[in-house]
């Protein structure tokens, strides 16, 4: 009996060594331990042994069963490991093949620039105001202290409608709408489309965008104007940016100024981009003219304020190095993809 059991174990070990997979392993288990398996058959034959021999023989058979079960279990684990390894190996991919690019679009570069301007001013406590593009002569000109004979009113420069209204030539009428609303103090920016009778070319378009800013409060000074716009310039163009304020003239501000920033190409040394001036003109600004405050129902003795306005196309073109304004209106996806 001992020999038979030993032979059975050896036989099992031999067959394990030759196993191909889990199916064969199951067959082996059935052959050994199944109802008609060899060990079961041996166990049944114990019935013919004497009662004295039976306990010892029983222990022998059980021990052999345990050994075989262990062997089968170990074999199973081995096969599983091997099969997993084989599968993983078969599943190898060329990881250097290109990734699947997700399809996404892009905001227009003008929006990108406008968003950064909005962020800067919102961060400085400004709200964003919106208003009409078609204005009456009062809002487009009169309320801004632009005289009845000012050339900006000419049919050469401004688009008119039959009733005398016009497309706004700047975002400045928004100053007046904001002041007329009478919520003081006020700090707001107003971006939007503006219109001038310029033929389309590399630097002009009859439709373009401006951003207006207005602050009205008690005790606002030119120092506040400078502090605000200097901070804005450093935020937009980088902390190393130098600014320069030059006296200028606008009918709706007094004193008036233009702000230049140090050229972001040459850093102020002078180059082709800044026409060797070292500075690039960015915006017009000034203290709101007392007559403009008055016309909008604000007492210039009590309140003062400043306003500024800038062209967004110019800033976008400089920021992204776009050389031709027409690209901004063509909407060629090969262009739009770049931003």
């Amino acid at each position, binding site marked *: 009996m001992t020999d038979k059991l030993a032979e059975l174990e050896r036989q099992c070990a031999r067959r394990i060594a030759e196993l191909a997979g889990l199916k064969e392993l199951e067959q082996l288990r059935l052959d050994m331990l199944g109802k008609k398996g060899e060990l079961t058959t041996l166990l049944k034959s114990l019935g013919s042994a004497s009662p004295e021999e039976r306990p010892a023989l029983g222990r022998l058979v059980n021990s052999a069963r345990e050994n075989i079960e262990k062997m089968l279990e170990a074999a199973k684990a081995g096969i599983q490991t091997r099969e997993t390894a084989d599968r993983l190996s078969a599943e190898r991919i060329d990881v250097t093949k290109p990734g699947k690019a997700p*399809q*996404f*679009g892009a905001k*227009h570069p003008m929006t990108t620039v406008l*968003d950064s301007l909005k962020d800067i001013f*919102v*961060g*400085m*406590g400004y*709200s*964003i105001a919106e208003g*009409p*593009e*078609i204005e009456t002569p009062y809002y487009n000109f009169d309320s801004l202290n632009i005289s009845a*004979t000012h050339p900006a009113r000419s*049919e050469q420069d401004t*688009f*008119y409608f*039959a009733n005398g*209204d016009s*497309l706004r030539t700047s975002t400045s009428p928004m100053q007046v709408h904001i002041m007329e609303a009478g919520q003081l*103090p006020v*700090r707001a920016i107003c971006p939007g489309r503006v*219109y001038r009778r310029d033929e389309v070319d590399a630097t002009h*378009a*009859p*439709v373009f965008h401006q951003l207006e800013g207005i*602050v*009205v*409060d*008690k*005790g*606002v*000074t*030119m*120092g*506040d*104007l400078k*502090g605000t716009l*200097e*901070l804005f310039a450093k935020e937009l163009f980088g902390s190393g940016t130098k600014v320069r304020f*030059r*006296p*200028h*003239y606008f009918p709706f501000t*007094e*004193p008036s100024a233009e702000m230049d920033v140090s050229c972001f190409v040459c850093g102020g040394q002078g180059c082709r981009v800044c*026409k060797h001036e070292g500075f690039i003109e960015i915006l017009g600004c000034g*203290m709101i003219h*007392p*007559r403009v405050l008055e016309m909008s129902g604000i007492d210039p003795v009590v309140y*003062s*304020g400043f306003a500024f306005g800038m062209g967004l196309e110019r800033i976008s073109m400089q920021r992204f190095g776009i050389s031709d304004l027409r690209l901004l*209106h*063509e*909407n*060629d*996806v*090969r262009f*739009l993809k770049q931003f």
Partner: protein
Amino acid sequence: MNVPMTWLSDFVDISGIEMRRFTDVMTAAGTKVEGVHTVGALLRNIVVGKVVSARPHPGSGKLRVCQVDVGAGQLLSIVAGAANVMPGDYVPVALDGACIADGKEIRTGDIRGEASQGMMCSVEELGFTRFDYPESPENGIYVFEAQHPLGADAIEILKMRADVVEYEITSNRTDCFSVVGIAREAAAAFEREFTLPKPALREEGGADASAEISVEIHNQEGCPRYVARVVTDVKIGPSPLWLRNRLTMAGLRPINNIVDITNYVNLELGQPLHAFDIDCVAQRRIIVRSAADGEQFVTLDGAERVLDASMLVIADPEKALAIAGIMGGENSKIGDGAQTVLFESACFDGPMIRAASAKLGMRTEASSKFEKGLDPNLTLAAIERAAELVEKLGCGKVLRGAVDVYPNVRVEKTVSYDAGRVSGIINAEFTHAQIEAYLARLGITAKDGAARIPTFRQDISIEADIAEEVARLFGYDNIPTARGTGAPTSIMAGKKTAKQVCEDDIRHKLVSFGLYEALTFSFESPRVFDSLRIPEGDALRNAIKIRNPLGEEYSIMRTQTIGGMLRSLSLNYNRRNPRAWLFELGKLYTPRTDGGGLAVETEVLTIGMYGGGADFFAAKGIAEAIINTVTDTDIDTAADSGLCFLHPGRAARLWVNSGADQAGIVGEVHPDVAAAYDIGERVYVAALNLSKLFDMPRPVKAYRPLPKFPGISRDIAVVLADTVEVAQMRRVIVAAAGQYLEGAELFDVYTGEQVGKGFVSAAFRLDFRAKERTMVDAEVDAAVSAVVESLGGTFGAKLR
């Protein structure tokens, strides 16, 4: 405004100031320098030489070989093409290594076998013309009129080298459109003395001007002042080099001494002058009057002009002689034979000149000054200066006195200011004494808050103007910066409105859906309506017209945004971009009839796409997602074959709030429309009325508990007539399925042989769930049966 530095220094001492500093300080003080160019900057190594001999070139009949003495001991041999130089002539010689105007370097070389050690120059080769140097021959080498030292710098002698500064003058500073005005600013900026010499006249003409001529002003509003002087024994000829040079550098062409003097004074003082040949003035009577309607007049450029009563003319009793402030007439122009000349120095009403100049389409040197409004007190100084130049140039005899008609003398006005408020505007403390000192530098006398403003400074009228004058001389860059908040108690939250946040959200979503943002013009061409198949009489054709458009293409305000979108897609298609998915957030403009203004400006989201798998449902899906970004609403799609620019079978309106509001449209573009825009692919568009959607409440984000009990799902497929819309099926399903239906999703549609012609198989997944318990199969089975029965009863649908 171009001003040679040498001319400026007639009125202010600017010696010892480096050019870079000069331009920086001028710019900082408000007279912006646009650029500096040095006339003749390239010219080098060009000296005076004397032609000693000239012989024919042995190899060419057209060339000559000259021996030229440049004072170097040895004669130079120079081959020349021009035939005008003779032995004994003094000429400018470009030596070996010289540089001429076009940047070309002159080298010793060999011309057809003869050595040539330099070049004799024409004025053209030195960058000038015969207008500048009328004594120079046509197509020939310049010959000096005097014998200059040999080897001397010819460019210096010809005064061809000078720094010219270009200034940007703002429109309010009419006084600065002149050399004297800029000199006054330079003096103020550098705290140097400004001197305007008083003209000294000999008046050798004998008679009084007032005995020779008379002046009447019939329109005083149009002409506040008219001053005239008379010059006899006029000798027309070229002006001297210094004067011609200054005109050229300032950008004007020298013509003859009399005309040059008027231009010179205009540049120097900013007062346009005009000269008439007095023999052309009938009765020697000058009358300033309004033109007659339809009056015809030939200006000195030879063009025939038709005038009207809003324009002003200078006339004699018989005829007009000039359009006041704009251009003289051919009938009185200074010809070479002019003997007696009347100089006019007048002041005209700016707006009147501007209007006339615009009407006539004539913008001249004179009109561009007059239209800004000039100081009538400038006229006399200008005519005195002109008379002085006549005497200096020796081109005539000036009669005694000027005829000056000036009924209402303009006097200095006083502007009062408060030193504290001026300081407050600027953010720096100024005492009265300091303010007075700044103003004094500008020629403004001020004392204790009252400033007397010279009449040439018409731009100063209020306290804020005084503040600007002080601030710019103090230096804008010296103003201490502040924190930009005004009153220290003004704490304000900066933020975007809910609508603005939503707009950002819309853009982010569209970008993540694969769309690119486009920008198109707000203008349209009236032809867009035909391109879009919009029928006659349709409301969309009712567009606001621009009175003065830049051409038909941009002549109306758009009443729809599809046209602009299709133009952009067309550009992409024709540039062979395989996929273009675009969106635009912009306005459309519709006429307003309620009297509240000209137009209603409506914000619209426009989507346009072709290629990259675009189809109707992609466009619709995007539109629906955006609607639900703006507001929480159910969305109903209603087919509409009447949307003229869309495919009649693939067009829909999108309704929200249970059909109460129309949010927009979506569809495939009609093939005829696509063809009109030259797009050879199927194109899909959607347009949403954002203005309307923004009026609805923004979606509220709030947590809803996750379901605690499992749901049960059933799939059903029914066969029914293919005319039944999915939306109709859904409505029936939702109505029949009972309260536990959680969702009914269409997951398959089949048409084909198996269901037969005219039929469709639609498969829905029905999800059921009870909130408080686990449902049992029986109740779901009952609900499904009810659905199938209802579909059967309503549409004759059969379970497949």
